[in-house]
């Protein structure tokens, strides 16, 4: 791609000519705040947080949607820009409820962070607070809280542009605009497939996972990137861990699944810490499976293996490996049966 020269905040930089101002700025270390932007979605220009001043333009322009032009002179932090952003934030905040104290999104909320950064006074606004008190809890996996929604439209766009489902839409006009589902149906009755992509992209606590896990975002121990355990697509997931427990699953955008998940990948993790997981080896004694030590179990298996081998030969063994286990585990299991027992009776349910 051809490179062109533009100026940002008085500094000349060279960027590919197909860049937007936002891309040019970010790549060169100029921070421009955004709320409705997502690299994977077509620019929407809804939130107006990313406005910048471009010399010659009548009004401020959104950096997310405006392509660079050779010789463009951009200011990302002039008084005019900052005042505009602040006004936008004040307006968004004025229409947002005050429950940051108990909101699960606190600490991971773009609106909270930007209000903090821009010194928005949370209580001293001249405006009336409205409340729709509308919370849609019908989905099994997440809730939608209208009073926390800033109408950035990311969920709407993600559902249609990324997921191709189109279960979320805008309804109403003007100040009555709200996120809804076609025909104002409840979430459960819409075409929603509960993939949770909307939850992943929501910048506030408007769309949040239903969870019993009590944790604050700043207390998260780690995020571990891994591969989903369900179907063969191999989606990359980030397991969010708090206190040795997976409390949420995020989807990193820089992966084959491009940050998209399905319902199982995003929400099907709660089997991990179930109480009925197997925790100890079990040995059948008098027809019943009873807990035992590893040593006892290993000894029993080893002796049974040895005696069977002696009495019936290698081909009296069979092993079912697993399409659910890792490569390493499949390898070592077949190695055990081929290399130690010396039988090729190894199969798995590839056919199912």
């Amino acid at each position, binding site marked *: 791609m051809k490179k062109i020269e533009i100026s940002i905040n008085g500094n000349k930089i060279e960027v590919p000519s197909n860049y937007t101002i936002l891309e040019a700025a970010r790549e060169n270390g100029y921070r421009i705040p955004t709320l409705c932007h997502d690299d994977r979605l077509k620019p929407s*220009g*809804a939130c107006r947080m990313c406005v910048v001043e471009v010399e010659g333009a009548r*009004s401020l322009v959104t950096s997310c949607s*405006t392509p660079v032009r050779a010789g463009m002179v951009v200011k990302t932090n002039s008084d005019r820009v900052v005042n*505009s952003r602040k*006004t936008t934030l004040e307006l*968004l905040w004025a229409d947002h409820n005050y429950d940051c104290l108990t909101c699960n999104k606190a600490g991971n909320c773009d609106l909270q962070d930007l209000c903090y950064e821009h010194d928005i006074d949370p209580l001293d606004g001249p405006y009336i607070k409205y409340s729709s008190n509308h919370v849609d809890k019908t989905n099994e996996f997440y809730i939608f809280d209208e009073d926390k929604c800033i109408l950035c439209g990311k969920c709407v766009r993600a559902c249609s542009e990324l997921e191709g489902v189109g279960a979320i839409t805008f309804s109403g006009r*003007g*100040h009555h*605009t709200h996120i809804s589902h076609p025909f104002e149906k409840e979430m459960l009755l819409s075409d929603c497939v509960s993939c949770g992509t909307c939850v992943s992209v929501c910048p506030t606590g408007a769309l949040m996972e239903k969870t019993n896990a009590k944790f604050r975002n700043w207390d998260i121990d780690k995020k571990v990137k891994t591969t989903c355990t369900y179907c063969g697509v191999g989606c990359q997931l980030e397991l969010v861990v708090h206190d040795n427990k997976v409390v949420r699953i995020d989807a990193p955008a820089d992966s084959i699944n491009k940050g998209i998940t399905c319902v199982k990948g995003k929400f099907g993790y709660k089997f991990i810490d179930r109480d009925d997981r197997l925790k100890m080896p079990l040995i059948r004694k008098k027809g019943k499976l009873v807990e035992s030590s590893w040593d006892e179990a290993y000894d029993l298996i080893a002796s049974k293996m040895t005696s069977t081998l002696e009495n019936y030969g290698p081909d009296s063994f069979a092993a079912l490996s697993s399409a659910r286990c890792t490569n390493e585990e499949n390898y070592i299991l077949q190695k055990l049966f081929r290399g130690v027992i010396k039988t090729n009776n190894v199969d798995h349910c590839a056919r199912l």
Partner: protein
Amino acid sequence: MSLVRSHVLICGGTGCTSSGSISIHEKFEECIKKFGLDKEVKVVKTGCFGLCEAGPIVVVYPEGAFYSHVKVEDIERITEEHLYKGRIVKDLLFKQALEGDVIKSVNEVQFYKKQKRVVLKNCGVINPEVIEEYIAFDGYKALGKVVTEMTQQEVVDEIKKSGLRGRGGGGFPTGLKWQFTLDAIGKEKYVACNADEGDPGAFMDRSVLEGDPHSVIEAMAIAGYAIGASKGFIYIRAEYPIAVERLEIALAQAKELGVIGDNIFSTDFSFDLEIRLGAGAFVCGEETALIESIEGRRGMPRPRPPFPANKGIFQMPTLLNNVETYANITQIILNGAEWFRSIGTEKSPGTKVFALGGKINNTGLVEIPMGMTLREVIYDIGGGIPNGKAFKAVQTGGPSGGCLTYKHLDEQITYDNLVRLGSMMGSGGMIVLDEDNCMVDVARFFLDFTVDESCGKCTPCREGTKRMLELLNKICDGKGEIEDIARLENLAVNIKDSSLCGLGQTAPNPVLSTIKNFRHEYISHIEDKKCEAGVCKALLKVTITDKCIGCTACTKVCPVDCISGSRKEMHVIDQNLCIKCGACIEKCPVNAIILK
């Protein structure tokens, strides 16, 4: 052999239809038959005559007799006296069509005399449902000329030379738009017509479509040829049923005759046109929202660039003009760019149609050459302010425009002048305000409209206009603080600067221009808690004047018992208790109680 010697033209526009022109049409047919004139007199339903205030309107040719406020009962007389006996029924004529004893034909009436009809040339002249009548007045000649004699670039050049600017609001040079779309590369290209007229009180596009639908169809075909499109969309609001019907009839006739369709005038040029109905959201007049709506999505604007000329309908290059802009095209092609430039001013050539409304004698549709002064429009054409009231302001540009004062009356009407003065051309609403109008209330009226009509997509417009309205309500309710003016101004500036589309970028204009020109009214609402015009109810008091005869009638009707006073003595209202219901005012036998 035709014996028709007289045509009775009945306005079939929305205004006159709603005031009963359909039954008038039927009655005429009936009476004419009764007098045995059905071979000699033809009754024609036409488009809007413009003077809607005077409707229903009937014009009888060849005399051009202009009957206004026609009632069904009048028709027998008109038939007998005028059509049968040849005597114009003077007392039924439009009042300005009669000066002393002299009867003026429709074109000589003051209201029309100063107008210059280019866009509305066929409105009120032809039957819009008969394509031959359109052709009789040179219809489809321009299309024929263009496709058989001109290259695409020549057509675009002619439009460029004419200096025509978009009549929908911003006044962008039309020729340039055509050039961009001609130059854009795309697998397909589209032509679209914005007939989603949404400004409150504006109805010029509706009138053109009702009165002369072919002029738009023809112009779109010309545009299609010029930019290389073979498909067009007319986006019209479903609330315009008559316009939609006429358009459908016209389109069917045009297809039947082959002026729309394949190989027009035996050339390679084929053009198809489709009507798309909009649900009447104001924002769908914004070009990208309109495109979204045509594509079948919720009408919400998308960021520009890319502009429709490059990526419009279905991401293909799209030429989008509004009805009035298109209605100029055939005239420019037939009469030439030079002729067009001879009308109006250098930078704003041509005419502009305005919907004249508010406190003015002749409300209705007027088409004037650009450069005419506001005074000429309001006083010469509009006939001035009724009831001897004083002129206060004129609001142009609808909810996107601003209020101009008496200081501006001698300013010329051009795109650039109006913007310079803090208003805009808009689609052509012109509302006259008199001393009884409160300017804070006027600002509130327009803002209330934009708050409702904001599509809700971008933050400043959705949230900001709502908050501005809140502040205005507060001021009108007598609870305003002096800081609220600065708050309004700050919000206004930021909404203008950072909104996504033209709707938001102009929504604060009515507030800013009233603050600028009528700041004292804001201050008196806030500091004196007074509304001089007597509009803001919360600021008015019900008071008993010394005309009171002490009859006690008012005390009996007062629902909150706030009036006290003995019989035959002057009564007093306790202002703290009064709820301003007005029951006492109605009851007072001597009109001693007033609201002020």
